């Protein structure tokens, strides 16, 4: 690959969104005002261009057998002589796919926000701040993805966390938003603490933080001091996993994501569905050589993923807040990706990440459109039958829901099926979890969809419901095209397989293959060992289950709504448990937050009475000396001159002492 071209375009991708953000932040309040979206749109647009260009370069490079290139932008600082930390970018197929997803979805979401962040045509308060944060987020996210060593990865990781915090709390005068922002930040801190320790351990183990060096050593099984022990690599993997679990909202650190829905809908679509939350998946794929070296860590990843998928899907069954349903669905889909990673089907996980970005961003934006039309109300009990009021939102959301539900031939179907398949090959239990989740997904998605768009038309009182403008609809159209067709890049068409036409593992996977060697070395050779029925039977089964889930939802919420009421009455305890999200938040509150708070109070008391006194004592010394020195400087010129002469004498004594001794 032409590394100077890579450098140019990578720099463009990095700097254009940053420049846009700065322009929006600096010029926004005074000059641009309601036009503050322009610099960010242009900046991110340029980044999209750069991402496509890089994609072209990488494809071209792949033909020549050069899959990845690391470009050192500049040497950053030296830990000690000869040991440099660089600002470097790593460009390979994985990076490029992530870049395309991140910049593409970002651009659409930013375009969408232009209208969303307006009320009656007037920009809302903090309009320029919103776009500046979005630009900053895109910058941080591409920095995370492009970063060529763990230090940059960590910086990007923290920076996206910060942007997420700022954007969740965008409506900071709303207490719920402020609390949600704080919660997201704190929960992420727990994960990031582990992540930070993991990076430290990597440095101690491998003596470097460069991806190239670290992964090479991990694959060869060597450390700075002799061989790499299994315990050490497992510890590193688990600490890194800790960070991924926090960022990608997996069990047990999933609690922040549903609350994060207090942020504006475009933020939910961009950060909390399509991009930032997938950073955990990206990181595990990137660190494949470390994870693959530890079967235990891989098993834990798979377990966390499978359980999270089921757990979150079950909660989504009974929620009423449209965005929360989608949030739990996101957690559940991320669970799928983790499951895929855990069973060494990293390609499928990245594929799912890619398709998920389309349909989940679409769903969130459509939900935002509903919310916009409903005057900020998002509770599906309060409105219904919107299909006539919001025809275009309805259509696009329908496509999004189908994709999420895994309806055959849509994007979600292909990627989800691959993961289910891989899970079954590895372990029947995990496969079962995945299948069960698939049914639930279809059900809760269409439960939400039918309740919102079918039945008699009801809108909340005092709301003049209206379809959104083009600024909002165009991104929806683009994303729905993606939701329907994006999956085909990962499917081989016309070479046998399902219906004699579709065979999984297409161009997408071949493109990614060079990056995924650590996972495939694990011996995942499923396709060679399974017969036709085993291989494609699952495909038919999951398609059938998806349709079944949709049918059940239709029966319960459109055909005979009474049945749903009865079900709720018959299983009140289950309903209650799910509605309260398994009481996880309460549990955390009782067993972690409150004890910590009492400890905090205890410490505060000590601090107030003991430490403050000590601090006073400590500072008393400089205060005293300060007063003493002040009193020396009396302002009298003569006195100064005398002290100067004394000083001269002392200096003389010193020099003479040195000379003579």
């Amino acid at each position, binding site marked *: 690959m032409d590394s100077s071209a890579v450098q140019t375009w990578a720099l463009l991708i990095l700097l254009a969104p940053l420049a846009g953000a700065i322009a929006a932040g600096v010029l926004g309040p005074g000059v641009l005002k309601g036009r503050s979206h322009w610099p960010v749109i242009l900046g991110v647009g340029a980044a999209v261009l750069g991402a496509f260009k890089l994609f072209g370069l990488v494809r071209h490079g792949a033909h020549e057998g050069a899959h990845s290139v690391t470009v050192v932008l500049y040497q950053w600082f030296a830990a000690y002589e000869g040991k440099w930390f660089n600002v470097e970018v790593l460009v390979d197929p994985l990076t490029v796919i992530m870049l395309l997803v991140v910049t593409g979805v970002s651009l659409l979401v930013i375009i969408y926000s232009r209208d969303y962040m307006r009320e009656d045509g007037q920009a809302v308060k903090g309009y320029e701040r919103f776009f500046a944060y979005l630009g900053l987020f895109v910058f941080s996210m591409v920095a995370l993805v492009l970063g060529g060593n763990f230090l940059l990865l960590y910086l990007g990781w923290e920076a996206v966390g910060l942007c997420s915090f700022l954007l969740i709390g965008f409506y900071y005068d709303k207490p719920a938003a402020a609390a949600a922002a704080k919660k997201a930040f704190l929960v992420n801190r727990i994960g990031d603490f582990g992540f930070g320790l993991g990076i430290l351990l990597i440095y101690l183990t491998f003596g470097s933080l460069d991806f190239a060096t670290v992964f090479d050593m991990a694959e060869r099984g060597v450390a700075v001091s002799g061989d790499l022990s299994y315990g050490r690599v497992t510890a590193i993997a688990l600490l890194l996993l800790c960070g991924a679990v926090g960022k990608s909202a997996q069990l047990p650190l999933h609690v922040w994501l549903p609350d994060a829905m207090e942020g504006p809908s475009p933020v939910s679509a961009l950060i909390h569905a399509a991009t930032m939350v997938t950073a955990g998946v990206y990181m595990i794929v990137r660190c494949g050589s470390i994870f693959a070296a530890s079967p235990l860590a891989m098993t834990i990843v798979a377990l966390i993923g499978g359980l999270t998928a089921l757990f979150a899907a079950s909660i989504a069954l009974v929620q009423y807040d449209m965005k929360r349903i989608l949030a739990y669905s996101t957690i559940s889909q991320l669970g799928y990706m983790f499951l895929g990673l855990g069973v060494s089907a990293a390609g499928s996980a990245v594929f799912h990440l890619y398709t998920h970005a389309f349909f989940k961003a679409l769903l969130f934006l459509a939900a935002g459109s509903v919310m916009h039309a409903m005057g900020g109300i998002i509770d599906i009990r309060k409105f219904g039958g919107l299909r006539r009021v919001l025809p275009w939102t309805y259509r696009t959301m329908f496509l999004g829901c189908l994709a999420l539900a895994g309806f055959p031939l849509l994007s979600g179907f292909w990627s989800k099926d691959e993961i289910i398949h891989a899970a079954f090959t590895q372990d029947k239990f995990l496969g079962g979890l995945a299948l069960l989740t698939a049914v639930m997904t279809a059900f809760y998605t269409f439960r939400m969809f039918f309740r919102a768009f079918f039945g008699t038309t009801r809108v909340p009182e005092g709301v003049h419901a209206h379809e959104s403008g083009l600024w909002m609809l165009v991104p929806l159209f683009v994303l729905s095209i993606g939701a329907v067709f994006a999956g085909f890049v990962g499917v081989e068409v016309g070479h046998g397989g399902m219906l004699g036409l579709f065979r999984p593992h297409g161009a997408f996977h071949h493109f990614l293959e060079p990056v995924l060697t650590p996972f495939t070395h694990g011996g995942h050779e499923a396709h060679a060992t399974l017969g036709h029925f085993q291989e494609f039977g699952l495909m038919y089964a999951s398609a059938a289950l998806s349709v079944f889930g949709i049918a059940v939802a239709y029966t319960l919420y459109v055909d005979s709504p009474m049945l749903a009421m009865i079900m709720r009455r018959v299983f009140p305890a289950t309903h209650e448990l799910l509605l309260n999200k398994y009481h996880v938040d309460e549990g955390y509150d009782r067993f972690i937050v409150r004890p910590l708070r009492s400890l905090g109070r205890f410490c505060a008391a000590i601090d107030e009475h003991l430490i403050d006194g000590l601090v006073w004592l400590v500072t008393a010394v400089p205060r005293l000396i300060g007063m003493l020195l*002040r009193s020396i*400087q*009396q*302002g*009298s*010129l*003569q006195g100064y*001159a*005398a002290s100067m*002469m004394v000083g001269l004498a002392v200096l003389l004594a010193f020099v003479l002492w040195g000379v003579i001794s």
Partner: protein
Amino acid sequence: MFIVGLTHYLILAAVLFCCGVFVMMTKRNAIGILMGVELVLNSVNVNFVAFDRYRPGGGFDGQIAALFVIVLAAAEAAVAVAICMNVYKNLNTIDVDRGDALHG
């Protein structure tokens, strides 16, 4: 016969220097202090010229330096006297220990 040598010049300069320093330390009047400074500068000039004269091989460096010192002294005196006048306008005195508004 008594011959005036380098040592004598140096002693003269040292005496001048001490006198100057003593004046600087004890005088209250700003002009007085400036005179002390001038004494020290003159001791410097004596040193320079004497060293130059008794330098093996001869040369001009010291004498040129002395000329420069004279010029610098003049420039400094000009600025200093101007400042003294300004002080006098503001404080009605040029006693240096009367100016103690700035301290601590």
